[in-house]
């Protein structure tokens, strides 16, 4: 393990390299991050034996990802914003074919108005397409989670694709200290990919054929059940990674902060949690019983763990970095459903859209609102 100051995008490229993908399809133009740029350099330097496919669009990049994975190898890609939107058509095909592709998504706003900055509208909009989605807070967590994701996605019970969701700019362009594991350590943690089925001209099989109404639902049900089983695999990967590398992120699905005797808490995803930690510390010094819940896994959704985490709470504010236009924050909707029947007071804040900074003052206001029984709103 080597500690260095590294840009999160580069750290993710280094972590991807350690996972030994054989093919990396990419659309290298805006809205792309430095992740694929760094991987191109790594491959050019002869540090990774992999093939880059320069696709003519993200739609093609995702199609190539699917095709390459079907040939029985491990793959990687990265995209963001409109790029993920353009991949939309292929995303459920990757998942429905049970291809454990792994992709990093630097979460950025969708146009219009044109905006290149961070929010979660890209990834949350594709939430229901059968990809595991894990949102992270720091460079270290991004490195560690990417390595874990391959294990989760490729486990026989799961066989589903996964997205590592990192906040665009707010994390992707940040330089900070992080430990990058050694190849031998990752090789021990992440065994070689063993495909269940291989698309091979010498041994032809059909992948992705039509499923008539008499069988389509069964396929979808199996996919859903596999996604639910992924919860256990995410926990297991986090646990075993922790044993080997000494770093764990809560139970893998959620991470709580100062929740022991908390009466009021905030839940959210990604980098806003870091800033919120500083506010919780400050309020704790003033004897306020406040805490935090970081949701790592949006899909599969850890409803049981969340119900456990809110025991004893009076109020919980949900900060969504996305708006389901015409209704409310999608995370809020999920949580209200998970907490149905509970006496907990829930409120919803829409924040950080299009790169609007989520400040410590914002977070503090949310806690004060919570303690005063006020409802949510937009953190402008």
């Amino acid at each position, binding site marked *: 393990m080597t500690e*260095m*100051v590294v*840009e999160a995008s580069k750290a993710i490229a280094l972590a991807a390299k350690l996972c030994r993908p054989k093919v990396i399809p990419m659309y290298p133009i805006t809205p792309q991050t430095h992740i694929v740029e760094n991987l191109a350099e790594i491959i050019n330097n002869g540090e990774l034996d992999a093939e880059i496919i320069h696709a003519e669009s993200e739609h093609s990049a995702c199609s190539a990802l699917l095709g390459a994975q079907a040939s029985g190898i491990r793959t990687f890609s990265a995209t963001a914003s409109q790029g993920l939107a353009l991949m939309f058509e292929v995303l459920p095909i990757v998942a429905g074919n049970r291809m454990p592709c792994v992709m990093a998504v630097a979460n950025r706003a969708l146009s219009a108005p044109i905006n290149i*900055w961070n929010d979660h509208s890209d990834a949350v909009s594709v939430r229901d397409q059968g990809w595991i989605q894990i949102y992270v*807070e720091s460079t270290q967590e991004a490195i560690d989670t990417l390595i874990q994701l391959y294990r989760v996605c490729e486990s026989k019970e799961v066989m589903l694709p996964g997205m590592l969701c990192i*906040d665009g*700019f*707010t*994390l992707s*362009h*940040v*330089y*900070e*200290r992080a430990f990058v594991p050694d190849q031998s350590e990752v090789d021990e943690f992440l065994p070689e990919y063993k495909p269940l089925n291989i698309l091979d001209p010498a041994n032809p099989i059909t992948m992705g054929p039509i499923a008539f109404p008499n069988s389509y639902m069964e396929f979808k049900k199996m996919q859903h059940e596999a996604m639910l089983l992924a919860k256990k695999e995410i926990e297991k990967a986090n646990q075993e990674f922790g044993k080997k590398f000494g770093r764990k992120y809560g139970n893998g699905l959620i991470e709580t902060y100062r929740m022991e005797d908390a009466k009021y808490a905030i839940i959210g995803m990604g*980098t*806003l949690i*870091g*800033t919120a*930690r*500083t506010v919780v510390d400050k309020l704790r010094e003033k004897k306020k019983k406040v805490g935090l819940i970081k949701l790592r896994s949006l899909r599969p959704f850890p409803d049981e763990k969340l119900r456990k985490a809110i025991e004893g709470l009076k109020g919980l504010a949900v900060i969504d970095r996305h708006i389901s236009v015409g209704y409310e924050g999608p995370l809020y909707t999920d949580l209200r459903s998970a907490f149905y029947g509970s006496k907990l007071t829930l409120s919803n804040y829409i924040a950080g859209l299009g*790169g609007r*900074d*989520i*400040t*410590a003052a914002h977070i503090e206001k949310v806690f004060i609102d919570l303690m005063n029984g006020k409802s949510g709103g937009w953190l402008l």
Partner: protein
Amino acid sequence: MVLKEVRIHGRGGQGAVTSSQVLAVAAFYDGKYCQAFPSFGVERRGAPVEAFTRISDKPILARNHVYAPDFVLVLDPTLADCVDVGKGLKKDGIVIINTNKSAKDFEGKIGGKVVTVDMTKVAMDIIGKPFVNIIALGAFAAITKEIKLESVFKAIDQEFSHKKEVGELNKKAAEELYKKVKGV
């Protein structure tokens, strides 16, 4: 926890973002935690840009923008006329400006303590080009005492690992600025 926040003002192409990163690496060599990030604007050559560095004894959790810097580093003297370089500066904060003017010339214009250093002259004398983004860290080390000069050297070595000669010139100029500020 001692957390110091730094804002660097430059013009697009001047290397302010690189300054923030090299400063973070220097802090790392000092055994500190660090975080560097640009202001995420639209990049245009010559336009005012900002970059930020956080330095701390403990892991840095905050990921919001820097609003109340302890130190401000201004790489281009003309920026002080068109950008509020003292914005949000902490009460005992310091603004370091690369200029041949004296600190008195900025009195009343910038809230807080101003230190001026003619970095461009040193850059021209030693490097032969007006690149101040890296060497400014020598002045920064001397004025703020937040990072060691040796750590700045190590960070420069890392930044210029592929252009060692340029790195050496930057180190020499950074040391010259360090000495100039220290008055030795």
